[in-house]
């Protein structure tokens, strides 16, 4: 496994995680959380864990984002912090 790919994707993961908890709009949090899940899936695919990557792609970047967006639309979208 090449170390440049590992380092770049890990940096993206950390930046997306920090951004997901700092934005004030909950819909933006949902989309950034989906990007975070997808970057994790890439990381596991590069490491050779193909079953785990498949599960995370279908669950995290699929169903979990839909639950999040459905809950945000049923409650409020703004947040104070």
């Amino acid at each position: 496994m090449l170390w440049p790919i590992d380092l770049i994707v890990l940096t993206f993961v950390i930046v997306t995680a920090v951004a997901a908890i700092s934005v004030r709009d909950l819909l933006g949090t949902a989309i950034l959380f989906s990007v975070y899940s997808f970057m994790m899936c890439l990381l596991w695919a590069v490491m050779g864990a193909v079953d785990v990557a498949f599960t995370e792609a279908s669950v995290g970047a699929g169903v979990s984002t839909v639950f999040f967006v459905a809950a945000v639309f049923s409650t409020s979208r703004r947040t104070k912090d």
Partner: protein
Amino acid sequence: MTEIISLVVAKYNYWLYIILMMIGLYAMIAKNNLIKKLVGMNIFQTAIILFYVSTGYKTGATIPIIKNAHGGHGVEAAVIHAADYINPLPHVLMLTAIVVSVATFGVAMALCVRIYQRYQTLEEDELRMRLSEK
């Protein structure tokens, strides 16, 4: 100097995983909104799963699916060496962990919707005020 560089090269990925875990822990403790706390919990869970899966990696090995297992086209099955394949045991345990995390996330979202229906807010300090008034 060279020993510092060799230390960094051997262990830098563990440091990045720990930074990710601490980001998730900070969001769970310090944020006010309930949904942001949930996002922090999920970041923490996936960071721990990442740490576990990375302990199974072997350099120069391939994915844990055995090639030519049923003796395709007259080639008989060769002897399988354990050093050629990545350790599959952490993958199995972490599959169950991912399933449990998505189930927990679904139930937590349902709880948030119910709290909003009852109290019309999702911020923790406002919830505490309304609970202490009752």
